[in-house]
């Protein structure tokens, strides 16, 4: 992507590791490995999440998702989606590490299969267990500022509050809480789930999120590569706008040529 010269380089740093891209990609809903490959080519994402329940880690060459990922370009971030409690999530993470994955894990604990909302109690418990086991933990959470702080204090590498239920494409329904999480966070905040359009990603980044994660919107696109590029551009634009300093919203108009301006020129 292009880099504006008057704004210094602005890498994303998670657990001491530097990333160029602030757009993460989930892989669960793509219609083919080719579609995923096209989306990744378009958005140039570095962090790619893969559901451990789907991945055949014992046969990565034969796995349609894993075979697309380039270890030189992508950090494979295993996720524990489908886990209903902390014990299941920890077992999945250990299996992934035993199969040769790096000790990074996107912690997803969704005991209810319809809306896939995260369980805050089990997430906190699993995070504690995984951190003790030496994992770098990126937890998916409801947009709960207190839970975010609790996880940060435990030592998670990020917090990943949802914008809306997974797959809903509804955008930032939790905007007010995400704003508080961002304001209070000392770790990167990754807005995850519900981002259905590039404008949603831009909005999250304008708020001050450090990164966004997208799956359904890319998987559902007619042109996966173009949509990947659109999301990458929106993510970058949102981040740039945030760093450039957005003007405050006002209820009343503020004239660009004030009628009383002559007084200060006297």
């Amino acid at each position, binding site marked *: 992507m292009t880099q504006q010269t008057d704004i210094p380089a602005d890498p994303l740093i998670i657990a001491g590791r530097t990333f160029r891209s602030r757009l993460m990609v989930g892989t669960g809903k793509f219609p*083919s490995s080719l579609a995923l490959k096209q989306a990744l080519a378009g958005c140039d994402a570095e962090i790619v999440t893969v559901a451990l*329940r789907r991945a055949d880690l014992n046969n990565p060459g034969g796995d349609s998702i894993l075979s697309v990922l380039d270890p030189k370009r992508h950090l494979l971030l295993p996720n524990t989606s489908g886990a*209903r409690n902390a014990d299941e999530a920890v077992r999945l993470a250990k299996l992934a590490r035993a199969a040769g994955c790096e000790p990074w894990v996107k912690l997803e604990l969704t005991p209810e299969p319809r809306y896939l909302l995260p369980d805050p109690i089990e997430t906190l418990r699993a995070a504690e267990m995984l951190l003790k086991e030496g994992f770098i933990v990126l937890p998916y959470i409801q947009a709960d500022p207190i839970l975010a702080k609790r996880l940060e204090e435990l030592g998670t590498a990020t917090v990943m509050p949802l914008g809306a239920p997974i797959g809903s494409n509804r955008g930032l329904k939790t905007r007010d809480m995400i704003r508080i999480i961002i304001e209070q966070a000392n770790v990167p905040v990754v807005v995850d789930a519900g981002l259905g359009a590039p404008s949603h990603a831009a909005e999250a980044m304008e708020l001050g999120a450090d990164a966004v994660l997208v799956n359904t919107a890319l998987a559902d696109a007619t042109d996966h590569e173009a949509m990947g590029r659109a999301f990458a551009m929106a993510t970058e634009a949102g981040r740039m706008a945030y760093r450039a300093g957005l003007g405050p919203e006002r209820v009343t108009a503020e004239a660009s040529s004030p009628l009383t301006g002559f007084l200060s020129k006297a």
Partner: protein
Amino acid sequence: MSFLTELEAWPAERVRACIEAATVDDVDRAIAREERTPHDLCALLSTAALERLEPMAQEAHRLTRRHFGRVIKMYVPIYISNVCGADCTYCGYAVRSGNKEKRLTLTEAETRRECEVLAAQGFQSLLLLTGEARQAVPPGQIADAVSIAHEYFPSVSIEVYSLSEDDYRLMVDRGLEGVTLYMETYDKATYEKVHLKGEKMDYLFRLDALDRAGRAGARRLGVGALLGLFDSHIDAFWTAMHARYLQRTCWQSEVSISFPRLQHTPERFSIPRLVSNQDLVQLMLASRLFLPEAGITISTRERPPFRDRLIPLGVTMMSAGSSTRPGGYATHGEDTLEQFEVEDTRTPAEVAAAIRSFGYEPVWKDYDYGFAGVAGTGSIS
């Protein structure tokens, strides 16, 4: 708590009247709504809805893609026994049909061999089936089969006779993921007419079985009616209501619906209400609109061209390369009695290719040993 309470609130006469009263405007409103009520479901099952099948299909397609993406989960059945103590008038396994020389229960070694052959074909999700034969295949033996299968497949589900909560828990503890149990028909009078012998005669014990399975920790619950035994539109209404009830009561379990329809039956049974292709499509679409997050399975009872056309209409799970005979894959060939004739005889690779041709990805693995917490291939001791 039992689904019976809801069934009693929606007797056949009420469902029929609600379906018959629906207008095209009611159907349009039902399609446009985000959350659909039982009255909306009736509208979608009505004759008036036949004028709106295409918009229903578009909405079903949209909802399915939103929740599941463009993926179809693949699974395969193994019949571990065709011994049966029930007399279901419509079924090839019924005790009345005799064929003693063609009935058997697989040994552990035979079960293992069947698993080896299917695992080598790429399957990672297995459904174990038996007849209605608690004495010939007691719960402990099914649990043993679950353990054997779990060595080869991360995901193991069962479709067997109704079990107690303790029996389901025993199997969940061995790594069982899901339980499928068809009510056959929710209409009690019809149920009693077609189930003439054995434990299966106990309507309520079967109706509440999936509640017990959910309480025991089964992660997937599959419901269905055998379409053709009773008015299929009313049975589809009750099936969808049962699924929604289970989503509320067994909130940690994923609920799925199947749409098996009677096509081949023993000579003594003539199908009272044939279900057309159009009927089946309407029932499937109405169910998807009512239950956006439910899995939908389409059986190998359907012929390949029709089965393939259903893929974009809400299907999320398909079997392939299926045999409905014990030992049908490796150990007994065609020497054993089959439950029903499979219409889709394509190989798993052929079915996967058909799925891809419709722009979907066949998913062989969607469950992990890590969920089960018991020994299995790839598990951590």
